[in-house]
């Protein structure tokens, strides 16, 4: 415990990484501890990827406040961090005459929350003109001009890279096991990679944020993860819907979303199932069937042959009905970002900003004149024009080697994803940073080459390469030890 940190952040999700970056606007010594092999490994990687307008949360809640504030920050994030953002609008579709009153209620709620941009109810004719593929029962919809889509991994990775560029430290495979208030007012943070002293702690531990809050505060929070199951449809169907298509919640359920992603695929989901195990990210026959059944109201002829994958994500659903943010009275210097579930992704920039200001005030952190807010994305070969491609290959011949055929990801991009600050350490990390392996063959062709590149860059044997850290090794052994027999 030699150096004293100003802030230690627990959790490398979108909120933790976002807060790390915001803190670097000040002169601060910041360390982020992530328990898994990579950042963006929890709910930040498995969600709807929607920038919510802000009509959904009850007026007066933190969810409503930070949703609307966060929503307004995405253009700046796009500019500073080179993260794909599309303002494709959201539509909340009603499938019955009776739904009108509920749409009116949402409209009113949205106005109270201060949702920016266009917000109005559109009739069936306009709905069908905008979205010709919407299901035959659709009657009308709430149009949310401030609705958009973003790539949640790229955002989280961009936050982390930019934070690291500006001096924040990141440790992965660093699980915090204990927190203790010291007599000098600082905190002792005990982790699997060492013990640290810090002036402030940020609890951005997602589904585990209740555990850390409850370690230090009597104001207990209980998180029961809510699992959602999703399908991804091939980008061949990228134009089926333009807006994110929500279903108006009814007494039958919250409805299933059908939405384009910034990568051109179509996302269908999620279900909402409360579970007890914070690591239970299985998909289930029941959940997947329910997803499709309900989504069929929005998209009647879902092309089941065009599914490229299914996944599930856990939302950190707390028992307070709202985010739990800031310093509990009985734990000064401990800052919660607890129970941040949907609209957490949209709220993340606003939460990060607010929290960093709170912390800066408390710790009296000075402005950092050297802060550079700009982060450039890994150049994407698939998005370059011919001249750009030629120039890229000339500068780095690895751009001439396509590794992932389905998403046209080159070796140059994969190597850069590993070499960047807080770079990829495993196959899934490369996937999230480059899309290699996320296409229609689901890494069937590129896995062997990606394993080789990772092994080379990390200086390990291909046998040590994992899918997502820990024991998730892909391969068991060599058949022949460099020519010596294996017998």
């Amino acid at each position: 415990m030699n150096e004293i940190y100003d802030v230690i952040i627990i959790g490398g999700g979108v909120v933790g990484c976002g807060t790390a970056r915001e803190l670097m606007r000040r002169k601060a010594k910041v360390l982020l501890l992530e328990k898994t092999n990579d950042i963006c490994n929890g709910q930040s990687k498995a969600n709807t990827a929607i920038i919510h307008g802000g009509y959904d949360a009850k007026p007066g809640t933190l969810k409503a406040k930070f949703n609307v504030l966060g929503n307004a920050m995405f253009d700046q994030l796009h500019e500073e961090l080179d993260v794909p953002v599309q303002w494709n609008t959201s539509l909340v579709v009603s499938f019955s005459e009776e739904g009108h009153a509920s749409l009116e209620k949402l409209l009113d709620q949205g106005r109270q929350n201060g949702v920016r941009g266009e917000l109005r109810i559109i009739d069936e004719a306009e709905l069908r003109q905008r979205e010709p593929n919407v299901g035959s029962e659709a009657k009308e919809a709430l149009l949310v001009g401030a609705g958009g889509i973003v790539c949640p991994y790229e955002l989280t990775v961009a936050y982390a890279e930019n934070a690291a560029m500006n001096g924040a430290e990141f440790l992965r495979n660093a699980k915090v096991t204990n927190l203790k208030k010291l007599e000098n007012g600082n905190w002792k943070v005990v982790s699997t990679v060492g013990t640290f002293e810090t002036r402030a702690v940020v609890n951005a531990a997602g589904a585990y944020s209740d555990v850390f809050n409850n370690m230090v505060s009597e104001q207990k929070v209980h998180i029961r993860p809510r699992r959602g199951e999703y399908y991804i449809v091939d980008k061949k169907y990228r134009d089926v819907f333009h807006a994110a298509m929500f279903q108006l919640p009814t007494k039958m359920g919250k409805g299933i979303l059908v939405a384009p992603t910034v990568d051109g695929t179509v996302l269908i989901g999620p279900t909402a199932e409360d579970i007890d195990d914070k690591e239970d990210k299985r998909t289930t026959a029941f959940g997947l069937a329910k997803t499709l059944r309900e989504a069929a109201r929005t998209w009647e002829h879902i092309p089941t042959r065009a599914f490229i994958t299914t996944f599930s994500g856990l939302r950190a659903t707390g028992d307070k009905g709202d985010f739990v943010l800031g310093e509990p009275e009985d734990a000064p210097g401990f800052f919660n970002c607890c129970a941040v579930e949907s609209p957490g992704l949209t709220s993340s920039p606003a939460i990060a900003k607010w929290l960093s200001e709170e912390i800066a005030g408390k710790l009296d952190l000075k402005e950092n004149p050297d802060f550079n807010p700009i982060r450039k994305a890994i150049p994407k070969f698939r998005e370059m024009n011919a001249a750009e491609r030629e120039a890229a290959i000339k500068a780095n011949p690895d751009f001439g080697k396509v590794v992932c055929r389905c998403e046209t990801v080159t070796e140059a991009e994969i190597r850069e994803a590993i070499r960047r600050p807080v770079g990829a350490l495993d196959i899934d990390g490369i996937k999230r940073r480059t899309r290699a392996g996320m296409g229609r063959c689901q890494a069937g062709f590129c896995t062997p080459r990606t394993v080789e590149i990772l092994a080379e860059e990390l200086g390990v044997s291909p046998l040590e390469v994992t899918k997502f850290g820990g024991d998730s090794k892909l391969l068991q052994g060599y058949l022949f030890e460099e020519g010596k027999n294996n017998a």
Partner: protein
Amino acid sequence: MKYELTCINCPMGCRITADYDGKEVTNIQGFTCARGKAYAQTEITDPTRMVTALVGVEGTHVPLSVKTQTPIRKPLIFDALSEIRKTVVVPPVHIGDVVISDVCGSGVNVIATENIE
């Protein structure tokens, strides 16, 4: 002894039964064509298989593919495999080169099925 086998000559996959006393195959039943009857005869008295496998190559993890030049007797498959597995070749090797001669005393050579330079 009673034998039961599936004919491999066509998608019919006839279930053929027969008796074999160690000398003669009798009571062959269930076949639909002459090929089936002949298959049962040899498959019971002297079943053989081509074995394809991998051998080590000096200085690399990447293996070389090989095969038995002609089918070997079925009971020898795993003995042959373990002998093949212990083999390490030194490049260059070309298709048809003998990698192991007379594998397991079968009288059959194991030969390379690809080129390495």
